[in-house]
């Protein structure tokens, strides 16, 4: 079984559009939406939830005001500035470390597990999908990504799937790292803007750091063909395969507004053609690649 992660560095370059179309084209894959704090894939694939799990990813300090003697030691020792001068606990700043619980001389503070999100196992008309929703403002998205990937793996093994397609989140930090570790290939979707190029380079460095084979797709390439050429020559120099060069097409947004994938909304469009070609190349590379 192989695993492919779609990532981008920069947000809004078209990760989810491409992942959703791959999900339609794939014959026997499990799809995992690992953008857990702003998941969007479900709006195109319309999963029907089979199973829901609560996600307890972090803890938070809670103070019992009846025991508190207002000595202020907790505030003094907290490295996260989570306790205000009137000894109120700021749940947004608290990282659940537990230091306040051990310095409190009267044991007035306890760490409580909080439900920080939900994770789902679902079925779509294209196959199985695992996804999650971090509660607004919660932390520990990396742990939740790991849970979504574990669920996908269990499903894929049970269903004899040959591929897990993972939709990543923007950036290069903890949730992205959690969504690329141990995968067979990373497809970076970029756009021909200076920011797109800058973020592409950092995303490629990240893949390299974790020994993941990189592939590149230039989306909306005709917004700036000079920049597209820069990306192409950069990839050539660094021996990175560019598997897709997709034109700008307003139908992509129309498809999204209609809650469907571009592959289904406009099967004959130039975008769908290019995504199909990209999918074919990715399948070939994944088959021939080791691991």
């Amino acid at each position: 079984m192989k695993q492919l992660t779609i990532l981008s560095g920069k947000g809004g370059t078209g990760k989810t559009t491409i992942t959703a179309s791959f999900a339609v084209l794939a014959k026997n894959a499990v799809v995992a939406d690992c953008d857990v704090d702003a998941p969007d894939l479900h709006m195109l694939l319309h999963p029907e939830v089979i199973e829901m799990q609560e996600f307890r990813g972090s803890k938070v300090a809670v103070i019992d005001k009846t025991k508190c003697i207002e000595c202020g030691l907790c505030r003094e020792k907290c490295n996260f500035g989570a306790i205000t001068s009137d000894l109120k606990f700021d749940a947004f700043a608290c990282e659940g470390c537990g230091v306040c619980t051990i310095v409190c001389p009267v044991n007035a503070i306890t760490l409580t597990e909080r439900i920080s999100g939900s994770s789902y196992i679902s079925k779509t008309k294209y196959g199985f999908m695992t996804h999650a929703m971090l509660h607004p403002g919660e932390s520990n998205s990396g742990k939740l990504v790991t849970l979504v990937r574990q669920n996908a793996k269990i499903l894929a093994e049970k269903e004899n799937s040959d591929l897990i397609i993972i939709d990543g989140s923007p950036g290069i930090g903890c949730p992205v790292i959690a969504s690329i570790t141990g995968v067979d290939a990373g497809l970076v979707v970029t756009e021909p803007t200076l920011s797109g190029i800058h973020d592409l380079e950092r995303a490629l460095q990240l893949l390299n750091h974790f020994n993941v084979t990189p592939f590149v797709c230039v989306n909306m390439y005709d917004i700036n063909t000079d920049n597209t050429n820069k990306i192409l020559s950069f990839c050539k120099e660094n021996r990175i395969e560019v598997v897709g060069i997709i034109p700008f097409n307003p139908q992509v947004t129309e498809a999204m507004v209609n809650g469907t994938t571009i592959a289904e909304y406009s099967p004959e469009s130039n975008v769908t053609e290019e995504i199909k070609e990209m999918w074919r190349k990715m399948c070939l590379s994944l088959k021939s690649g080791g691991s």
Partner: protein
Amino acid sequence: MKGISMIVSVASGKGGTGKTSVAVNMALSVGNVQFLDCDVEEPNAHLLLHPNLHKTEPVYTLVPLVNEKLCDYCGDCSKFCQYNALFTSSEKVLVFPELCHSCGGCALVCPKKAINYEKHRIGALKFGSAGDLKLVYGELEIGKPMAVPVIKAVKKQIEEGKNMILDSPPGTSCPFIETVRGSDFCVLVTEPTPFGLHDLKITVQVLRNMIIPFGVVINRAGVGDKKVYDYCREENIRILLEIPYQRRIAELYSRGVPFSLEMLEWNEKFRTLYGEIRKFVGK
């Protein structure tokens, strides 16, 4: 935060809606700005501002350093650590700096006083200027998972007497929260598409919980659908500005040109936007 004129953060939930573009164009229209790019995973504001960089400073976190001479491998530190950053075997304590949140708890619980702290580099701060605008941005090192300490380091650079504009990373979890915490106002940039609206709604929930006032800028107006307008009306959220979808704006952005520099009518619009925020905040 005495003497700070006003802190405005620009955020979005969904990535790629135009946060940096709005933040930069607003900053250039206002003047006397200190711009903090808090998207330390993928900082982009400097690609539009083209600053003269004059200083780089490393960002460290403090991680435990175990003195093996004093340690008796009791395991109290590993047991206490909520992040599994320490592992104690019968003859060694392993430290995983990437997992450490620098809470200081392991040293507090160690009965042998065997734990000190050492610096662990996770990123850098860059300082630059473009005209009268001062820019500070953070850069998380490749492979380091924790953006929040770098964001905190960027926010420590806040200068008195400046108009503060903070560019937030996408998403709705800790890096976003760390950025907007303490803001007087948050500008939410969205696009009129189902993805844009979905992620906007999550962001609005967070800001309401945090009691930070906010308003919406609709970017690429004209694409997609009208649902974001319905949502804002129903929720009583003020729409501060609409930026139409224009190929020219997209092309200027792709070349690293803030569009208000070429399309001068926007200069005034962004100044008005900032003025309205100032009136609302009352600073």
